[in-house]
Protein backbone atom coordinates (compact mmCIF):
# COMPACT_ATOMS: atom_id res chain seq x y z
CA UNK A 1 0.00 0.00 0.00
CA UNK A 2 1.48 3.36 -1.00
CA UNK A 3 1.22 6.64 0.89
CA UNK A 4 -0.99 7.85 -1.92
CA UNK A 5 -3.34 4.89 -1.36
CA UNK A 6 -3.44 5.61 2.37
CA UNK A 7 -4.22 9.27 1.77
CA UNK A 8 -7.09 8.29 -0.52
CA UNK A 9 -8.53 5.60 1.76
CA UNK A 10 -8.58 8.00 4.72
CA UNK A 11 -9.59 11.10 2.79
CA UNK A 12 -6.54 12.58 4.46
CA UNK A 13 -4.82 15.89 3.93
CA UNK A 14 -1.03 16.04 3.54
CA UNK A 15 0.53 18.51 6.00
CA UNK A 16 3.99 18.23 4.50
CA UNK A 17 4.99 18.87 0.94
CA UNK A 18 7.95 16.61 0.60
CA UNK A 19 8.28 12.89 0.50
CA UNK A 20 7.57 10.35 -2.17
CA UNK A 21 3.88 9.44 -2.25
CA UNK A 22 4.71 6.14 -3.96
CA UNK A 23 6.62 4.82 -0.93
CA UNK A 24 5.36 1.37 -0.05
CA UNK A 25 4.02 1.04 3.49
CA UNK A 26 3.90 -2.56 4.61
CA UNK A 27 2.93 -2.23 8.25
CA UNK A 28 1.18 0.11 10.63
CA UNK A 29 1.19 0.73 14.35
CA UNK A 30 -1.36 2.71 16.30
CA UNK A 31 -0.72 4.25 19.75
CA UNK A 32 -0.71 7.37 21.86
CA UNK A 33 2.08 6.01 24.07
CA UNK A 34 5.41 6.78 22.49
CA UNK A 35 7.32 4.19 24.54
CA UNK A 36 4.97 1.56 23.13
CA UNK A 37 5.74 2.80 19.64
CA UNK A 38 9.46 2.62 20.42
CA UNK A 39 9.05 -0.90 21.80
CA UNK A 40 6.68 -2.50 19.32
CA UNK A 41 6.64 -0.70 15.98
CA UNK A 42 8.66 -1.97 13.06
CA UNK A 43 10.79 -0.05 10.58
CA UNK A 44 9.32 1.54 7.47
CA UNK A 45 5.82 1.48 8.90
CA UNK A 46 3.00 3.97 9.32
CA UNK A 47 2.25 5.49 12.73
CA UNK A 48 -1.39 6.31 13.49
CA UNK A 49 -1.81 8.53 16.54
CA UNK A 50 -3.95 11.12 18.25
CA UNK A 51 -0.99 12.96 19.73
CA UNK A 52 0.48 15.89 17.85
CA UNK A 53 3.49 17.12 19.83
CA UNK A 54 7.08 17.30 18.62
CA UNK A 55 8.04 14.07 20.42
CA UNK A 56 5.78 12.13 18.07
CA UNK A 57 7.96 13.19 15.12
CA UNK A 58 11.11 12.45 17.15
CA UNK A 59 9.73 9.02 17.95
CA UNK A 60 9.06 8.35 14.28
CA UNK A 61 12.56 9.53 13.42
CA UNK A 62 14.41 7.30 15.88
CA UNK A 63 12.18 4.29 15.16
CA UNK A 64 12.56 4.61 11.36
CA UNK A 65 8.82 5.13 10.86
CA UNK A 66 8.03 6.26 7.33
CA UNK A 67 4.97 8.48 7.83
CA UNK A 68 2.44 9.64 10.45
CA UNK A 69 -1.36 9.94 10.30
CA UNK A 70 -3.02 12.17 12.91
CA UNK A 71 -6.63 11.22 13.58
CA UNK A 72 -9.76 13.26 14.37
CA UNK A 73 -8.47 16.31 12.59
CA UNK A 74 -5.75 16.94 15.17
CA UNK A 75 -2.93 19.00 13.74
CA UNK A 76 0.58 19.56 15.04
CA UNK A 77 1.94 23.08 15.31
CA UNK A 78 3.99 24.64 12.56
CA UNK A 79 7.35 23.91 14.25
CA UNK A 80 6.50 20.23 14.46
CA UNK A 81 5.44 20.18 10.81
CA UNK A 82 8.69 21.94 9.86
CA UNK A 83 10.70 19.36 11.81
CA UNK A 84 8.94 16.53 9.99
CA UNK A 85 9.67 18.22 6.65
CA UNK A 86 13.34 18.47 7.60
CA UNK A 87 13.44 14.79 8.61
CA UNK A 88 11.54 13.77 5.49
CA UNK A 89 8.66 12.22 7.44
CA UNK A 90 5.36 12.91 5.64
CA UNK A 91 2.47 13.93 7.91
CA UNK A 92 -1.23 13.46 7.18
CA UNK A 93 -4.38 14.44 9.02
CA UNK A 94 -7.74 12.69 8.72
CA UNK A 95 -11.14 13.56 10.15
CA UNK A 96 -11.71 9.89 10.90
CA UNK A 97 -11.51 8.53 14.44
CA UNK A 98 -8.66 6.27 15.49
CA UNK A 99 -11.00 3.28 15.23
CA UNK A 100 -12.21 4.11 11.73
CA UNK A 101 -8.71 5.00 10.53
CA UNK A 102 -7.36 1.63 11.62
CA UNK A 103 -10.47 -0.19 10.42
CA UNK A 104 -10.36 1.21 6.91
CA UNK A 105 -6.66 0.53 6.46
CA UNK A 106 -7.01 -2.98 7.85
CA UNK A 107 -9.92 -3.65 5.52
CA UNK A 108 -7.71 -2.71 2.59
CA UNK A 109 -4.97 -5.07 3.67
CA UNK A 110 -2.62 -3.07 5.91
CA UNK A 111 -1.45 -5.03 8.96
CA UNK A 112 0.44 -4.43 12.19
CA UNK A 113 3.91 -5.73 13.01
CA UNK A 114 2.38 -9.04 14.06
CA UNK A 115 0.00 -10.31 11.43
CA UNK A 116 0.67 -11.38 7.85
CA UNK A 117 0.52 -8.72 5.15
CA UNK A 118 -1.97 -9.07 2.36
Amino acid at each position, binding site marked *: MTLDDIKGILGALALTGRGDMEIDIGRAYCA*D*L*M*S*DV*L*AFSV*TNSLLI*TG*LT*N*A*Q*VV*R*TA*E*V*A*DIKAIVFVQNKRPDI*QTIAMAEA*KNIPLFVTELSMFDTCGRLYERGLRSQMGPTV
Partner: protein
Amino acid sequence: MTGNSDGVFFLTGKDFANAGSASSNLKGILEKRGIPAEIIRRASIAAFEAEMNVIIYAVAGMMHYTITPETIKVVLQDMGPGIPDIGLAMQEGYSTAPDYIREMGFGSGMGLPNIKRNADKLTINSVVGEGTTVEFVISLERSGR
Protein backbone atom coordinates in the same frame (compact mmCIF):
# COMPACT_ATOMS: atom_id res chain seq x y z
CA MET B 1 34.53 6.39 8.53
CA THR B 2 36.65 4.36 10.91
CA GLY B 3 38.58 4.98 14.12
CA ASN B 4 37.09 6.42 17.28
CA SER B 5 34.86 9.41 17.69
CA ASP B 6 33.16 10.95 20.65
CA GLY B 7 31.14 13.97 21.62
CA VAL B 8 28.69 15.43 24.08
CA PHE B 9 25.23 17.01 23.97
CA PHE B 10 23.87 19.16 26.79
CA LEU B 11 20.33 18.60 28.01
CA THR B 12 18.05 20.96 29.91
CA GLY B 13 15.27 19.67 32.14
CA LYS B 14 11.72 20.41 30.90
CA ASP B 15 13.03 21.72 27.58
CA PHE B 16 10.42 19.79 25.60
CA ALA B 17 10.88 21.84 22.45
CA ASN B 18 14.36 20.36 22.03
CA ALA B 19 13.72 17.00 23.65
CA GLY B 20 15.06 14.33 21.34
CA SER B 21 17.46 16.53 19.42
CA ALA B 22 20.53 14.93 21.01
CA SER B 23 19.35 11.46 19.98
CA SER B 24 18.51 12.77 16.53
CA ASN B 25 22.03 14.19 16.18
CA LEU B 26 23.54 10.96 17.43
CA LYS B 27 21.51 9.06 14.84
CA GLY B 28 22.94 11.30 12.11
CA ILE B 29 26.49 10.66 13.33
CA LEU B 30 25.93 6.89 13.32
CA GLU B 31 24.47 7.06 9.82
CA LYS B 32 27.55 8.94 8.58
CA ARG B 33 29.72 6.14 9.88
CA GLY B 34 27.80 3.65 7.80
CA ILE B 35 26.68 1.57 10.76
CA PRO B 36 23.89 -0.93 9.85
CA ALA B 37 20.39 0.57 10.10
CA GLU B 38 19.19 -2.08 12.53
CA ILE B 39 21.93 -1.18 15.01
CA ILE B 40 21.38 2.55 14.52
CA ARG B 41 17.70 2.05 15.31
CA ARG B 42 18.50 0.25 18.57
CA ALA B 43 21.02 2.91 19.62
CA SER B 44 18.68 5.76 18.69
CA ILE B 45 15.70 4.30 20.56
CA ALA B 46 17.78 3.66 23.69
CA ALA B 47 19.33 7.15 23.52
CA PHE B 48 15.93 8.80 23.01
CA GLU B 49 14.33 7.06 26.01
CA ALA B 50 17.32 7.99 28.18
CA GLU B 51 17.31 11.56 26.88
CA MET B 52 13.57 11.90 27.59
CA ASN B 53 14.15 10.70 31.15
CA VAL B 54 16.72 13.45 31.72
CA ILE B 55 14.37 16.07 30.22
CA ILE B 56 11.39 14.78 32.22
CA TYR B 57 12.94 14.05 35.62
CA ALA B 58 16.23 15.97 35.95
CA VAL B 59 17.29 19.60 36.14
CA ALA B 60 20.06 19.25 33.59
CA GLY B 61 22.33 16.64 32.15
CA MET B 62 24.50 15.54 29.30
CA MET B 63 24.71 12.76 26.78
CA HIS B 64 28.22 11.59 25.99
CA TYR B 65 28.84 9.15 23.17
CA THR B 66 31.92 7.17 22.21
CA ILE B 67 32.00 5.22 18.98
CA THR B 68 34.78 2.74 18.27
CA PRO B 69 34.96 0.08 15.56
CA GLU B 70 33.68 -2.39 18.18
CA THR B 71 31.02 -0.52 20.17
CA ILE B 72 28.70 2.43 20.59
CA LYS B 73 28.77 3.64 24.19
CA VAL B 74 26.33 6.29 25.40
CA VAL B 75 26.44 7.79 28.90
CA LEU B 76 23.69 10.06 30.21
CA GLN B 77 24.61 11.85 33.37
CA ASP B 78 22.15 14.14 35.09
CA MET B 79 21.70 16.40 38.08
CA GLY B 80 18.29 15.52 39.43
CA PRO B 81 16.28 13.67 42.05
CA GLY B 82 17.96 10.30 41.48
CA ILE B 83 16.22 6.93 41.49
CA PRO B 84 15.56 5.50 44.99
CA ASP B 85 14.92 1.92 43.84
CA ILE B 86 16.49 1.03 40.49
CA GLY B 87 15.02 -2.49 40.49
CA LEU B 88 11.53 -1.03 40.78
CA ALA B 89 12.23 1.63 38.14
CA MET B 90 13.32 -1.12 35.73
CA GLN B 91 9.96 -2.89 35.96
CA GLU B 92 7.74 -2.55 32.91
CA GLY B 93 4.92 -0.15 33.66
CA TYR B 94 6.45 1.45 36.75
CA SER B 95 6.35 5.22 36.44
CA THR B 96 6.30 8.29 38.63
CA ALA B 97 5.66 10.62 35.68
CA PRO B 98 3.05 13.31 36.29
CA ASP B 99 -0.13 13.52 34.19
CA TYR B 100 1.13 16.23 31.84
CA ILE B 101 3.99 13.92 30.79
CA ARG B 102 1.50 11.13 30.12
CA GLU B 103 -0.50 13.51 27.96
CA MET B 104 2.64 13.96 25.87
CA GLY B 105 2.81 10.22 25.26
CA PHE B 106 5.53 9.40 27.79
CA GLY B 107 5.38 8.04 31.30
CA SER B 108 4.10 4.57 30.55
CA GLY B 109 6.98 3.04 32.48
CA MET B 110 8.53 1.42 29.43
CA GLY B 111 11.56 3.71 28.99
CA LEU B 112 14.21 1.89 31.02
CA PRO B 113 12.92 -1.54 29.85
CA ASN B 114 13.14 -0.24 26.26
CA ILE B 115 16.76 0.80 26.84
CA LYS B 116 17.56 -2.61 28.26
CA ARG B 117 15.89 -4.38 25.36
CA ASN B 118 17.91 -2.44 22.78
CA ALA B 119 21.29 -2.36 24.49
CA ASP B 120 23.80 -5.16 24.89
CA LYS B 121 24.79 -3.76 28.28
CA LEU B 122 23.04 -1.32 30.61
CA THR B 123 24.40 0.15 33.83
CA ILE B 124 22.48 2.56 36.04
CA ASN B 125 23.97 4.39 38.99
CA SER B 126 21.98 6.84 41.02
CA VAL B 127 22.29 8.88 44.18
CA VAL B 128 19.03 10.23 45.58
CA GLY B 129 19.10 14.02 45.70
CA GLU B 130 22.13 14.22 43.41
CA GLY B 131 21.51 12.54 40.09
CA THR B 132 21.57 9.53 37.84
CA THR B 133 24.00 8.03 35.35
CA VAL B 134 22.68 5.68 32.69
CA GLU B 135 25.28 3.98 30.54
CA PHE B 136 24.56 1.63 27.69
CA VAL B 137 26.72 -0.16 25.18
CA ILE B 138 25.77 -1.61 21.82
CA SER B 139 28.17 -3.98 20.15
CA LEU B 140 29.08 -3.44 16.50
CA GLU B 141 30.62 -6.84 16.11
CA ARG B 142 28.57 -9.56 14.50
CA SER B 143 28.85 -11.72 17.60
CA GLY B 144 27.25 -8.92 19.63
CA ARG B 145 23.77 -10.37 19.51
